[in-house]
């Protein structure tokens, strides 16, 4: 199928884009890489009378870096991050994550800002930006706004973005050079959305741990973080400790997990922790 008739605009500034969105109201949609929106328009699962293509806004395709942080424009593609065209604040985590998003054709066009705006719970960047302590920035009729990435998502496909807001970029603090990370996701088949995902970052005595691909926002695992902060090596006894901590974290989150989701999430988490400790899983995912 093909989408219904729609008006297409390609503004060159954020202000212009917001103006077009305000005029379009509920019937206007922002399009960036189009890797989710175009199929949904084609299937008529989403109707839009007006598409505002932010791909023509030069500043949103750029990135900048200093020694504290890296700013990545919303229209930077997964592929640009994968191949290292963009400065990496994450000691290799972001290129690795980017390289495992769907397939190359999607990575060529799909953007980090588009992925965050849509907020599909299985999207890799939701969990990654949350784990990295990034700040999401957007602009709307009321001006510029921002929030920590782990507060950006309310629920599946629901974020702090208002109807006429444009996500402009992500500000990511640099990890200390000795910080380590681990991540693992499970997909039903090659190139598919994940149905379980975990990510762990350890920097000195501090750790951050998240579950992604849940029924909503990524889940921060505070008990697990406290536990993992003390790990210096992987020991077999840690499995039981991590399981307990994870159960406490899931109870705190108030979210529902089926038996299989719990097992899969636990496995992803264990592998992520092991990986962050320099313990390579026998087989990295997706390979």
């Amino acid at each position, binding site marked *: 199928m093909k989408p219904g008739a729609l008006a297409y605009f390609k503004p060159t500034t954020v202000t212009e884009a917001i103006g077009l969105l305000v005029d379009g109201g509920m019937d206007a949609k922002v399009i960036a890489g189009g890797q989710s929106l175009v199929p949904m328009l084609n*299937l008529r699962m989403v109707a839009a009378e007006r598409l505002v293509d932010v791909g023509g806004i030069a500043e949103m395709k750029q990135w900048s870096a200093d020694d504290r942080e890296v700013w990545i424009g919303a229209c930077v593609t997964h592929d640009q991050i994968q191949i290292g065209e963009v400065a990496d604040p994450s000691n290799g985590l972001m290129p690795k994550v980017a390289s495992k998003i769907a397939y190359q054709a999607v990575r060529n066009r799909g953007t980090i800002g588009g992925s965050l705006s849509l907020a599909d719970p299985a999207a890799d960047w939701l969990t990654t930006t949350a784990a990295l302590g990034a700040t999401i920035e957007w602009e709307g009729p009321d001006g510029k706004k921002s929030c920590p990435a782990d507060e950006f998502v309310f629920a599946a496909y629901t974020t702090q973005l208002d109807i006429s807001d444009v996500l402009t970029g992500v500000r990511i603090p640099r990890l200390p050079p000795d910080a380590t990370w681990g991540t693992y996701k499970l997909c039903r*088949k090659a190139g598919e959305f994940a149905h379980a995902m975990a990510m762990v970052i350890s920097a000195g005595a501090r750790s951050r741990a998240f579950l992604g691909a849940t029924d909503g926002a990524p889940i921060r695992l505070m008990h697990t973080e406290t536990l993992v902060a003390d790990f210096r090596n992987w020991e077999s006894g840690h499995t039981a400790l991590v399981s307990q901590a994870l159960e406490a974290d899931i109870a705190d989150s108030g979210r529902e997990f089926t038996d299989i989701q719990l*097992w899969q999430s636990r496995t992803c988490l264990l*592998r992520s922790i092991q990986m962050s400790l320099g313990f390579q899983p026998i087989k990295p995912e997706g390979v």
Partner: protein
Amino acid sequence: MVALMPVGNIGRSVPRLEGRDKVMGQAEYTHHLRLPGMLYGKIFRSTLPHALIKSVDTSAAKAVEGVFRVVTIDDIRTVIPHPYYGPAFHDQPVLADGKVRFAGEPVAVVLASDPRVAEYAASLITAEYEELPAVLDEVEAAASDICVHDELKPAATFPDLQHLKGRRGTNVALDYRLVRGDVEAGFAAADHVFEHTFRCQQAMHTPMEPFVSIADVRDGRMTLHTASQGPSFVRIEMARLLGWPENRVRVKVPHLGGGFGGKLYIKLEALVTSLSLLVQRPVKISLTMEEQFFMVTKHACTFTIKSGVNNDGKVVARKCRILWNGGAYADIGPRVTQKAGFTSAGPYDIDNVEIESLAVYTNRPPAGALRGFGAPQAAWAYECHTDLIAEALNFDKIEFRRQNLLKEGRPQASGTPVHDAAFEKVMDQVADRLDWHKPFNRGNGRILRGRGLAVGIKGITSPTTSVAIVNLYGDGSCGLYIGTVDMGQGSDTVMAQIVAEVLGLDAEAVHVIHPDTDVTPYDMGTLGSRSTFHMGTAVRLAAEDVLRKIDDLAKELGLPPNSNLPVSEMLRKKYGMQAGNIIGTGSFIPDYKKPDPETGQTPKATPFWGVGANGAEVEIDTETGEVKIVKLVNVVDAGVAINPRAVRQQVSGAAIMQMGFTMTENMVFRDGQLTNGSLADYKIPSLLDMPEQFVNEYVESRQQSGPFGAKGTGESSTIALSPAIGNAIADAIGVHLTDLPLTQESIFRAIQKKNGTPLPEDDND
């Protein structure tokens, strides 16, 4: 008989004749066709699996600007008084008639010259229903009081279904039985008896070209342009529905973008014909990818298999009971039930066999033919069962099979002797490619490795007819007129090779005329691996007829024997100018003898045997259930491969398709509603899913009765692929899964259960 001089067309990988057109985007498909004055139809579908229709409100749709007409069954009846069709049972109404029998059934159609207008208007139609209890599972439906149809209405074309006429109060549309020897005595005398139950899921054909048909009825004649695998059948059935002679119905079929058994018999053709008849304008309906789930599907089934085995490894008795979930309309399901039924004891020589194979109506989308015609579902059971027996009795899996495989001349369960079926050869070649007899790394800890193989058998639909015409034009160039539909399998190329071989031409110089029932002669259909064998023989006979006529012409012209005068010169001599034709015809129907209705015994059940073996090497991540197919080996018996590359393509294509049915594809229903009816959720294999090592081969063999020793091979690598993978997974994790598809989750659950740490949901069974 004309002496044949081989000219090098057989056994040559002639590139596809249509390849260039397809690559250039110039090949003709029904989807491209627009006729002057044509209307587009869009379908309003039922939202309930089983209900009486109280009313259909089309007023809002009619009020939409640009809508030409909205049609329900009442309108259809004004042009076709008995609007029911189907190849086995006349059970399917052109549009729902007072009752809906599955969620997704067509209830009304909007016609408009703009398909978007039609689609929008169709979304405004509403219906009121009186909901009836629905029956979805085949085991439940076989014994249920809830009946999908009040009465069975077999079509006159199938004499063996006539005993079912008028039967009421049942969902069982066909009860096929085969009896050989005394199975109970066999069990009683056997050293060991094993029984297992296996299940297959409902799946979809997923041709990349969705269903599309255009009818153009005017002045008492009709032309149908349709993406069909069986134009001759379409003409006969449309002529019957209309009460017209066949010569007023013309069916044209260009290239197909895949069919896989889905585009057989009547699909959209009855609907577009009725609509065009009603409005006297051309009408086109093309389905979306999502609507295909409601057209025709692959049978789900439940198969209980029981075997008596002696200590020496001989299988002495086998009992098979298969329930096929046929969905709401029979389509060709009863034939699947019967054909897959008669080989459901596997490629084994067993003295005592009893088979019961039942076609069951349910409130699901209809099921019909799909690449393998039920043989892959049957093999899933009998080949997993074979490994389970071998493991229990500690037999070598290959030698246990070898001991029981049917040998040349031995009677299959139906009593038909097996000829030219290279079961051992294909099995041994798979074993060789898997390095079966070399040490194998089984992995450890998280990653376990396993390997498995399986052998499959398939009978071929019989008796069926093919007719071919070979026409040499005035300049001696050659046209071939056949009803075989090239849907990507390469039949145009192979048929051209056969003609060319007989006439001493190059296959590349032959023009194949695509099915057009005004022009091309009868063919039963492009289905069930039959074309190379049946149409190939007809084509060969037609070409030989041409040779005889050339000889006759030479004599008539007083030419000396073996004068070698070109045909164009001979015709010029006869007619005094470049003129005339030499037309050869050939028709073929194989020997067949109807099975005994009580025992299913017959000396001629099939014209040849479909034979394939598959092997797999897998890696299982025991902490996640992830399975990686490291190596997949598919070996078939193709007889003599007329076009070796085309054979290998068929072997690999069929294997990839069956891999989807084995690993991911599954139509999931909740309360009778399909919950994953789009390719976003229903997952077919992609390039990223191809095994690291993917071996597709055929063995040296010869089908004595086939054209140049060939037999059909479009399905052979599908038959035993699922059990090969299932057996490999069992070899790795020590548990046999019984239900397809073999998902990460089901593998993970099985591992946890085996380790004594079942997941909560599995704890109570």
